[in-house]
């Protein structure tokens, strides 16, 4: 599973991975919240 990344890079990779996943959630929640709220109005 970690073949691509040496051991000492693991923390850095986990950090960026989680950051990106959070980014996905933020983008989606802002977008759909805005879309549905504007429809409800």
């Amino acid at each position: 599973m970690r073949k691509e990344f040496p051991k000492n890079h693991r923390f850095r990779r986990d950090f960026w991975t989680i950051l990106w996943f959070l980014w996905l959630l933020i983008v989606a929640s802002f977008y759909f919240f805005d879309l549905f709220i504007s429809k409800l109005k």
Partner: protein
Amino acid sequence: MDQFAAFVHVVWIVALGNFWGQRILVWAKYKFDSELERTAFGFAAGFGSFGLLLAILGSLGFFSASACYLFFISLTVLLFFGWKDLPPWNPRLIFEALQKSPLLWALSAVLALAIIQSMTPSTAHDALAYQLEIPKRFALAHRICYVPYGVNSVFPLLMNMFYVLSLLWDGTRMANLFHCVTGLGIVIGLLAIERRFIPKSWLGISALIFALTPGIFGQMSLAYTDVALSFFIFFVFYSILKWQETADLKWFVLAGIYLGFAFGVKYLAALAAISVTAYLIVLASLRKIKLGPALAGLFLMASISFLIGFAWYFRSFLYEGSFLYFGEKGYIAKNLGYLNSFALPWSMTMHPQYFGGSWTRLGIIFLAFLPGLFLIRKKPAAANTFLFWGIIYFCLWTLLPRQNLRFLFPVCALWSLPIGHLIASGFPEKWLTKWSRIFIFAILIIEAGAAFYHGRNSYRVALGLETEEDYLKRTERTYAVAQFVNTNLPENAKILNAYEVRMFHFRPEVIREPEFRQKTHYDTRFATSEETVDFLKRAGITHVLIAPSDAAEKQIFPPRNIRQLVSDAQVGKSRFKELYREPSQKDSESGYTVLSLI
């Protein structure tokens, strides 16, 4: 012609173009990875060439239904004589692919939905304002002609040549379908690249991401030109990719041909030309390619695209004295302020209304997933190259006089490939692979649902459950007044129109007042109202159309502008006779009025 016949006609023309394109490419000894790739390239080459041939027919004055039938039937007969030259095409491969990838079924369903939505009489704004209005003028004149006071008529009109054909044979439905098949062309192109490195069970993911991009799906079923532009631009890039792989300069020739077609569709083809040039310069400076062949290739590409695409610009120069025409400027500067433009990708995803309308939204897949690409190290060369081209094109887009999201459709086509690869290959972390896939499928399902929902008005008429007339009465604001004009006014009437831009349904010549005013200054050059009306009569104007317009109500016009003249104390009653007044639901003053000049 009914829906089915319109569909069969489009399939005929597209298949004919495709086979001719393939034949010529095989004859010119182009080598392709797969039959799918050959089909994709042949599709684009044949389709563009047919547009060009139609333009030549039109310039010679052969725009009539029977002349076009004769032309395409002869091309069909000629093709059958040389059928043996074409390597065999095996439909079994399609079934095999469908068995292996469920995504291809989803893709087929999405395309079928787009085709059904295309079967609706056009009510889209730009289509009725000029994309179909100008072809209607050509069809009525049986040739490509100059439309005075219609600046859009000197734009490059390669795609609109298919719309002329549609109007000659059927109506607006075929025009929508022709635009729809250009989207299909990109889908085939994406599939052809995808199959090189995306596992068979995931085949179709990039094409699905592209086709379900809300703005793109929405526009595919309208007679516009942005998807068509993306179609040709996509194949310019694809040809450059093939050159990199084979080092064969003749791919630049093909890139030049596609670029010439793209220049025939829209000015924005220049962004593709600059992107390719910048890309080759970067590669040569990094010593990844040799400068000599790259320069030779660029020269070839530029000269061939000039040969194929320049006629449109020369035509504009002949009539208007300028090669290009620019409209309104500056979305970024006007609506967001320069500071906010730093967060451009966010703003354009979340607030599409500032970038040319919320109906052209790009969805969140690009904003959400592009950063994820930095988490996978090894990407296939093609995916990397497409990502890079997209970035250059995007940067150039920010410099445009007007940042419209639909001008970014070519970038969506390019970026769907690396994102598709990201989803199909997955990450070293299993949880991330799983959740990113769940995430993207959720978005795709929502997008598909939205695509289905937005077409809700059109299904009845598309499936033949409602007549076209009933549909247009229900949805098109100009339909009733246009019916009055078409039945009661003479064919050669000349109508000064303040300010209805949706002019497609009017049969007599309709002149837009702003352009007439810009060229004649009729409302400021005379001392009296009588003289102004006399001038209008001398200019051939026989009727006036006054349209309800909130913007016009707020505007202050010079006293001799047509909107003031019709209610002028001096000439309002004596020189204008009211023929038609449309009661509007809210306010009886605000419907359309048609008057004749006495």
